[in-house]
């Protein structure tokens, strides 16, 4: 009885806004206390943060993302994509999807895509003749597009947590990076086709391809184009480990934005560093205490019990995946992505592996759900950011984002029930 009362109190504290690290920490403390384990074990578990070499990628990529978000990279990215893709039918919408996907992959889906890119794309879209509702929906739903593309932080974090789990199968971040590429492409493709179809009665005139524009756009972003090549080429060419790619990226981005483009003053750097490390601190603290609570969960055989419980009712893998999708969509709307990963992966991953789901595939499913959760009514975070940024009512945004959500839900179903789409690049 008493454990249930504690659990209820913790749930209440959580919904009234207690920092999640404190909730998880309290949970781990209670758990270890009931098992008769000295609570110092929590500090020992937290120290495992210092035993995880890939974690270095987290602060470094976050910092690089903050620097990019502070400079005019967003302008150059839109100009570049427009110059090369803008001539196609539905060009500008496709430009928006691709630019957002790239930007989110590097900056993390923290709402910065909507603020930085949405502010450029929304006026551009309406000016080109797209309906207002369509444009705002596009910008809102694209704010989390690109979560599945390397080097997105949630992908890295999923890999790190999965590696701590000891589930008998290796989950490398390299594999996760590869696995996300085609699902992300599928999403962009489906969204592009949908926006063509949506605007079939409202044809937007195509702008002709201009060599001059293209060259000027290339020239402007010449220093930023190598970034994706660094990251992907460096990692898959075998030159860098992921943490090293992050270090090089961080250094490179600072040199380019501060000394070449001169868009960030050196005096601004400390505050950018501080802001980015506050975000890293919040994530790492949750990760640290979650390492402890995960240890308790495993000691107490909770994943096994949970599996047996679910197995008694759900024998079919497909049904399990449907239920999983529903659960994750709800969680994605309520929790921010990092907490969702840290709290749910230790519980879900062992169960899913027992159902025969590939852990890399599970990661892609998980993040695809989270991506949609970002703008799922009633509480998806990006809805509020867009509402605030573009001065629209929340109910307007619900309506505007809804069709995009349906398209992405179909994409999610394909991603979920067609594992090969995620896995064929890594099944050597």
């Amino acid at each position, binding site marked *: 009885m008493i454990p249930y009362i504690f659990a209820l109190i913790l749930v209440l504290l959580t919904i009234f806004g207690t920092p999640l690290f404190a909730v998880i920490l309290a949970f781990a403390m209670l758990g270890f206390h009931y098992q008769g384990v000295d609570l110092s074990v929590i500090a020992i578990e937290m120290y495992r943060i210092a035993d995880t070499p890939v974690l270095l990628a987290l602060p470094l990529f976050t910092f690089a993302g903050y620097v990019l978000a502070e400079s005019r990279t967003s302008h150059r990215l839109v100009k570049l994509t427009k110059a090369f893709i803008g001539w196609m039918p539905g060009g500008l919408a496709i430009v928006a999807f691709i630019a957002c996907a790239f930007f989110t992959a590097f900056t993390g889906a923290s709402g910065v895509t909507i603020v930085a890119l949405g502010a450029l794309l929304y006026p551009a879209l309406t000016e080109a003749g797209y309906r207002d509702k369509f444009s705002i929906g596009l910008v809102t739903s694209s704010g989390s597009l690109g979560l599945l593309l390397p080097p997105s932080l949630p992908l890295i974090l999923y890999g790190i947590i999965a590696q701590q789990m000891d589930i008998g199968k290796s989950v490398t971040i390299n594999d996760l990076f590869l696995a996300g590429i085609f699902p992300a492409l599928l999403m962009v493709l489906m969204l592009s086709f949908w926006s063509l179809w949506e605007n079939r009665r409202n044809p937007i005139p195509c702008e002709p391809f201009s060599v001059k524009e293209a060259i000027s756009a290339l020239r402007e972003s010449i220093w930023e184009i190598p970034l994706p090549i660094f990251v992907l080429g460096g990692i898959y060419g075998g030159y860098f480990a992921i943490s090293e790619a992050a270090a090089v990226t961080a250094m490179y981005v600072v040199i380019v934005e501060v000394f070449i483009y001169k868009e960030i003053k050196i005096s601004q750097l400390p505050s950018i560093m501080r802001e980015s490390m506050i975000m890293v601190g919040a994530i790492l*603290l949750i990760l640290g205490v979650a390492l402890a609570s995960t240890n308790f969960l495993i000691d107490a055989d909770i994943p096994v019990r949970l599996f047996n419980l679910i197995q008694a009712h759900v024998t079919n893998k497909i049904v399990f995946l449907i239920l999983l999708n529903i659960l994750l969509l709800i969680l994605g709307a309520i929790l921010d992505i990092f907490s969702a990963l840290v709290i749910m992966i230790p519980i879900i991953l062992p169960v899913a592996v027992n159902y025969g789901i590939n852990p890399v595939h599970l990661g892609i499913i998980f993040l695809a759900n989270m991506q949609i959760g970002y703008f799922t009514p009633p509480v998806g975070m990006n809805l509020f950011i867009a509402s605030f940024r573009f001065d629209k009512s929340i109910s307007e945004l619900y309506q505007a984002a809804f069709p995009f959500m349906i398209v992405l839900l179909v994409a999610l179903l394909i991603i979920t029930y067609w594992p090969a789409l995620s896995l064929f690049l890594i099944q050597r």
Partner: protein
Amino acid sequence: MNEQPRKSFLERFQMIIEHVEDSILVGLLLLMIVMAVLQILLRDLFSTGIVWSDVLVRILVLWVGLVGAMVASRQGRHINIDIMDRYLSERAKIVARSVVDFFTALICLIGAYYGLRFVQMEFSVGGRAFAKVPSWLCESIIPIGFMVMAVRYSLLFVNNFKKIVESKS
């Protein structure tokens, strides 16, 4: 924030502490970037490397994380779920917040106590993390971090509690 003249010493003290904290955070990140890049350059250009560099960088990740968490706790900027916030009256919000801050401070305090015990144990065992740096020193950031956060959330609690008392009178 009000009663400015009386609080000025405390405020100045707080500002200095915050400034020191910010500088440490920025310094740790800079060191991390430089060490990580240096290691790559040494390896690729001169096929050499600093033996303890990898360990140092990994410990820096922990330190950056906890110092960042300390800074985040200044204004209570830790990740939370605030679904109930929209449905509460102003007064209820302040009450809820003071309960939440009190609870968080308490948990951090317990975390700091057991963190300290862990560091004490490591101190008596003795062990080196890298070069000549002892392990307990690297681990000490865990109790320090929790202690600072406990103080910060206590202050947030006191502030909210004051508001409750003031609104009653």
